[in-house]
């Protein structure tokens, strides 16, 4: 059970959160102008590193804020400070 430091609520158990996958994948400005391959890259392709990974979490059972943290995918260490997405 990870302990995730919510920027608003402080440290809470992982099961209060919803996982949001890799952070920093912005919705394309003009999807209609993308090739099929480029669009598939946005929709389907994500990094899967062994090591540090910037990912999004949503505090579903708390303040309902989306935020990003860096987590090490081997040790589960979470680096602070967390980054607010907005």
């Amino acid at each position, binding site marked *: *059970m*990870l*302990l995730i430091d919510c920027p*608003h*609520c402080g440290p*809470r*158990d992982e*099961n*209060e959160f*919803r996982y*949001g996958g890799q952070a920093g994948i*912005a*919705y394309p400005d003009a*999807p*209609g102008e*993308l090739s*099929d391959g480029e*669009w*598939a890259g*946005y*929709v*389907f392709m994500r990094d899967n590193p062994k090591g540090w990974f910037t990912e*999004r979490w*949503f505090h*579903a*059972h*708390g*303040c*309902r*804020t*989306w935020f990003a943290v860096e987590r090490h995918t081997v*040790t*589960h260490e*979470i680096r602070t400070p967390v980054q607010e*997405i*907005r």
Partner: protein
Amino acid sequence: MTRLPSGGLIDRSVTLPFHFDGRPLHGHPGDTLASALLAGGVRVVGHSVDLGRPRGVFSAGAEEPNALVRVGADPMLAATTVELRDGLRAWSLRGKGRVDPDAVDERRADKGYLHCDVLVAGGGPAGLAAALAAGESGARVILLDDQPRLGGDLLSSRVRLDGAPALDWVAAAERRLAALPEVRVLVRTTAIGYYDHNYLVAVERRAAGERLWHLRARRVVLATGAHERSLPFPGNDRPGVMLASAARAYVNRYGVRPGGRAVVYACADSGYEAARDLEAAGVVIAAIVDPRPQAPAGHAVTGTITGTITGTTSDADGLLTGVRIGDQHLEADLLAVAGGWNPAVHLFSQSQGRVVFDDALQAFVPGASAQAERSAGACRGLYGTREAIEDGYAAGAEAAGRDGDFAVPSSDETALRPPAAYWGELSPDATAFVDLQRDVTVADLARAAGTGMRSVEHVKRFTTAGTGADQGKTSGALVAGVMAELLGATPGQLGTTTFRPPYAPVAFGTLAGRDRGELSDPVRTTAMHGAHLARGAVFEDVGQWKRPRYFPLDGEGMREAVLRECRAARTGVAAMDASTLGKIDIRGRDAGAFLDRIYTNMYSTLAVGACRYGLMCTADGMVFDDGTTTRLGEDHYLMTTTTGNAAAVLDWLEEWRQTEWPELDVRLTSVTDHWATVAIAGPRARDVLAAVAPGALDLAFMRYAGTEVLGVPGRVFRISFSGELAYEVNVPWHYGRSLWEGVLDLGAVPYGTETMHVLRAEKGFAIVGQETDGTVTPQDLGMSWIVSKRKPDYVGKRSHSRPDTARDGRKRLVGLLTDDPDAGLAEGAQLLRESEVPARMLGHVTSGYASATLGRTFGLAMARDVAPGDRLTAVSGTATVAVTVVEPVFYDPENARRDGEPVAAGIVSTAPEGRAESPAAAFAAGFAAAGSQSVRLRELPATPMWEVRGADPGEGLRLGPDWWLVVRDGPAGEGWVEVSGQRTVLELAGPGALDVLITGCPLDLHPSVFTGHAQTLLAKAPVIIERDGDAYRIYVRSSYTAYLAEWLLDALGR
């Protein structure tokens, strides 16, 4: 009788009778079952799992491989871990557990959540010192120990500290700990798992039932001690062979002589300590056998033989009669083996720390830490009492972030020499056991090596060594040692197998705790639930909701009930509880633009007061959810979602609002539990509406009216999911039951989800999650009409022109008619053409029903390469049903039915009375009865509530960065969303309130930390908890109120 006349930590003034295999015996408080069995002269406690060899008590703790027993409803326990109690009945086992299906088990397991600065696992000298050092600096400390009393190994030793018995030092430490308010000591509590982010799980054994503690610590000190290990030699499993530390524990702690004449095998100096203590208790020491050339300085026991044990002898019952040292045979009924020590690195290893082999100690010890943790004392190889205490103080001080000068007592122990680097002879004898519980011998390991296995993990799986309930606590290092000898390597090169939780066996009932039966998962019920129960509804689970599936009248099965309910909706008037649909209040200047981006169709152009059906997709273009969204005002919409998807949709909207479109002015508030909803459907629906909401009588199709319902402010939407004239009538939650009863009193026939499904299927309306499964686009559903071509973008738009979604030959929604009008169509049945060989799977049946209106069975399916008129076969298991493909609209394709009939002439219906009822109303008496001096439970009177988003209202509970809940009488502010029905407020008060909350709330509720309020989970249900002294106000969603009330009453009943 082998009980000593005096000494030990047992209370001889009290006799505890018990039975073993039906034989009456007795012991005393302070005994374990194992010590009482030894005292009663029971030498064979069970038989081994594969070979059926007689086995006796081998250890004095959780590492026991041999003495397995069934006790009452517990199918397998180690006798060394069972505290003796009056009337206990135990049965011997042959290596594995036996369930007694008739056993009565009245224990009730529970759980609890605790947080601390420093968690100390183990209450021996190191753990006590660590807890003292941390606790006396003011830290919040939890100290766990698996024994009934603190002291660890000191309970079993005759060590003197500062010239006094070591237990005096323990007693003084306990007194100091007891004076520290922030130190919590849990005895009879075994830490069984160490997980990420310093999350540990421990089992507390209580007579009333075990308690599973979930512990979160800022820092952890592991002071888990060490287990002595045996050595493999022929006949090392006979009853009478015992760990030297165990023999010492039995004489010193339990006042039991485990034998009359002993040989001590001292590969480590603990053997000499055991020999000295056994001799002091009157046991004759026949010899001490030590592979090391020199005995330690100053030991007073005579008869040391330099050498190794090569075998044992036994009597006809298999009991030990003697020991062989080469050609020499010594008579003995006790062989105390000190094979060396295995530091208990289990929790350290579970924390992902790597163990390393220490050549001097001949043991695996903790290497670098992976978490905020350190080991202290014997579990890192510091076996001396003084060294352990010193290390414990240092570990506790470090964990608490303090300096300290600690008074470390002097000890009368002699300095320990390095143990023998000895793992036994590679004997081919079939009785030289490495793992006693699994009957694994040196010969088995040799066979594994002979097949080419080099990894201890492979050897473990091949031989099963280490897979018993003891998880190889005494044998794990032995396997590495013997394998190293077999392979010409060192134990360090082989390493250990992975240590996995649980450290000790744990019952499933303990893991379940109170989460069983009705409380196994949160249940959501509507305001009408009591009425549904009274009417005998049959429920189905939709997410966590209980929804009536149908309402059988006397003797009806589902088919008859549903046909009757459908007929009522098609020919008269019927009503359904639609409260479970998700309802999201959407406000802001950009609410319309936001919805345009979310839905495939347009909302910014919707007229105020109009409703529109919408479909939303995920970015991959697949249908995600659907529902009707209404424009309540210029900048104000109400979205409805499917029941099962309500939370996911709100999360989805928040994701786009927060992470992609923060520039949009839009605010989202769930009002699902604020409104109770009744769908009234049928050509005569107006007759009912005229009485309950006359102000909405003139509503046009797909229009909304804010109007009085039962005399209270409500909302009426004229929308239809059946094709009939239909209204969804909303009232604040507390009036829901009143509305429902009123509607039924006016003649509406209650119908459930099954009828709702049939009615919509007759109209060809797809259900998200039934016709769709995350691979279906709107176009696949034949709903291209709802996908805007004009909008520049919406979520999923680009995916609708991907090659895969735009191609021909995708599965599409079709209708099916069975050749046999009575043949049922099973959902999931595969569709194929019998003429095709080999047959292709063309698709599957998504819905299959019997229709009262059509007088026949029919279905919906997702299928490719089929057209109306095609003849297919639906195959489910061995059943085949011949079907014909048709357009997926079976009823009223011209939508001629949706306006229904005018109000019947001569109907003079009086409005039923609106009566408010809280979701907790039924529990008031139960709450009052469950209260005690220590804790009281009540519902607080209903008070108006609003959720406020955006600017700080300057009052209320702040729930998020720009989100507040205001609870008070008086006028609302601009733009506040009324949610008075959304939550019920329960108050748990009194000095015992916190102890109730920690059984279900993972949050740190310590009074120094939890001073205001928090939104979190209680009993897995979402709540806001607000603290006021020792009173806690619990704001619970109305749909969870009954569940949480039951949970609280269950907690108070303990």
